[in-house]
């Protein structure tokens, strides 16, 4: 319990730091970007919308501490103002409409990468020096040297442009009515394959190597020899005895990646024009849409923190040592 409270306190501090950073950036940056934004879009807005944005960005004469307290209040109650580039939709609505795609893309690729990567790691450690163990890691390290977005571009070029197997952009064919129909779901899946595959390709190596290294250590434990001496089937020893005890670091990295599902797919979404929060974040930056930018950053950070906290709770259940220390 103390562990959980300590972690909770830490996450609050982290979130507070993030809010503070968000508060300070538009106020102390040179060049006064916010005034530019107002100059561009003032005539379209209602007076109360302008007032709220002025409050959020500190374009008024109140003392700074008062602005700060108000700002924290606004953020915690979800009042992030209206989006400029997608006027007059409130920022929260823009984010809500797009976060689903990000979670779909990030979630699917994370699960595939984690499952396949860990299985490969288990196999590699079990057959040391075998094909999986000696062939794959150098290849994956080499692939990992390429900048991710470049690999994604190459994949898009090869499979999208040259071979024409997969669509080039967006999450579903425009004009198709969203709904739980077979046609729509197939179309979504078809659009998902290429972006998800590129993420899996670059992230699978980390999973595999991590699992392999822990598993090698576990394989040397006495209880493995004991299990062999008992004459258990190799498959049973491999999964129930060795892999199970080597899972813990993988759980940690799964949690961390779970958080980055929301923010980490930014480059993927940009290359494949996938309509998630990362794509929107870049669009907001290009459109000088500061309210949306801030809202997205806060959402992404909050997602990272919540995911990490959930893993902490899970960890307490999985590892008794955390409970006692």
């Amino acid at each position, binding site marked *: 319990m103390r562990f959980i409270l300590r972690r909770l306190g830490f996450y609050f501090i*982290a979130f507070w*730091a993030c809010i503070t950073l968000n508060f300070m950036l538009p106020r102390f940056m040179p060049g006064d*970007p916010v005034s530019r934004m107002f100059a561009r879009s003032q005539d379209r807005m209602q007076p109360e919308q302008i007032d709220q944005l002025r409050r959020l960005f500190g374009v008024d004469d109140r003392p700074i501490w008062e602005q700060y307290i108000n700002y924290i209040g606004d953020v915690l109650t979800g009042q992030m103002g209206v989006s400029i580039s997608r006027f007059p939709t409130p920022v929260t609505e823009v984010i809500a409409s797009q976060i689903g795609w990000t979670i779909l893309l990030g979630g699917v690729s994370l699960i595939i990468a984690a499952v396949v990567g860990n299985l490969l790691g288990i196999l590699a450690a079990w*057959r040391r020096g075998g094909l999986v163990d000696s062939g794959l890691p150098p290849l994956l390290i080499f692939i990992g040297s390429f*900048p991710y977005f470049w690999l994604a571009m190459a994949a898009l070029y090869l499979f999208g442009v040259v071979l024409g197997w997969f669509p*080039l952009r967006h999450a579903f064919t425009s004009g198709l009515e969203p709904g739980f129909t077979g046609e729509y779901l197939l179309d979504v899946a078809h659009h998902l394959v290429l972006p998800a595959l590129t993420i899996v390709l670059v992230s699978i190596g980390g999973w595999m190597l991590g699992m392999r290294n822990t598993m090698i250590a576990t394989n*040397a434990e006495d209880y493995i020899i004991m299990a*062999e001496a008992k004459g258990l089937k190799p498959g049973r020893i491999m999964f129930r005895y060795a892999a199970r005890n080597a899972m813990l670091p993988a759980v940690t990295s799964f949690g961390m990646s779970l958080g980055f599902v929301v923010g980490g797919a930014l480059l993927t979404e940009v290359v494949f024009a996938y309509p998630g929060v990362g794509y929107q974040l870049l669009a907001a930056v290009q459109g000088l849409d500061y309210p949306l930018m801030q809202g997205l950053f806060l959402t992404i950070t909050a997602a990272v923190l919540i995911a990490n906290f959930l893993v902490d709770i899970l960890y307490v259940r999985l590892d008794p040592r955390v409970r006692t220390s």
Partner: protein
Amino acid sequence: MTNSIEGTASTVPQRTRPPSGSRHRGAIAGNDDGGATPIAGPPRRPGGSLVHGLLTNRKAATGALILGVFIVAALLAPVLYPDDPSRITALASQPPSSDFPLGTTAKGQDVLALTVHGARSSLFVGLTVGIVATFVGLLVGLASAYFGKLADDALSLLTNVFLLLPGLPLLVILAAFLPPGLGTVILVLIVTGWAGSARVLRSQALSIRAKDFVAAAVVAGERPLRIMFREILPNMASIVMGTLLACVIYGIGAQAGLEFLGLGDVSTVSWGTNLYWASNDGALLVGAWWAFIPSGLCIALVAFALALINYAVDEVTNPRLRKVTFRTGKRQADPTDKGKASA
């Protein structure tokens, strides 16, 4: 007491290392000199085997060779292509030919000239970011480990917060608010990159802080700075070097990513901006593979070379790692036996 410690630690003379030792060691030395203490000299005994080991290590040699080619290309770029590389010199979107070995961009620029000139900015930013981020991480890690208690708690908290904040979105946000330019790119990459190295270096410094010779130095009344940089630092030289290489890889990759998103200075020529323009001009869609393959390949090769050197440093200097490889060698026998037995 101090004398005996110093004696054991520096029996190997400090400045008599062959100057050709390695370029990377030089980079570290430059980095450390910023600390205003003469720590730099290649560390004592572990350093000796490091230089020797690296010189005879094949991975290190391959990595250094690849990296050397790029550094030479970057230095010679103004000689090879004295003209402004972004000048339009030819027809647009020409495939590779004898005149333009790597073809031309959609604007009619020579891709080879752009790539060679791009090495300058990319390597410069990568090295700067790597060195500064490692140095900040080193300061935080050493201070954390040396002072302990409240200072450690505060610095660790700061590090962990920075580690937890989503890196790429933070990069994007910072780059959006700051005025565009090379300085901004470097600054932003350092802000988002130092925390990782701080965490690694702190844990290493902590384990050395607990050693007897550090306690002895404290008792002898040495100044904190001296203990941090002359007692603790030399004993973690290899991990500092590993961190530095990792930070340079991060710097090059993240700069490219940032510029690819159009958030860098799009008027400079670097591998990242080359890819940005290639993507912007639709090189992919018209099938102009030569416009985006070279820059990406260069980034990958540099990162691969640095990673090779990093593995070599690990292999050569880390006795624990060496033991692990030995032990895995032993373990290796087990599963094969198992396989035979079960088959």
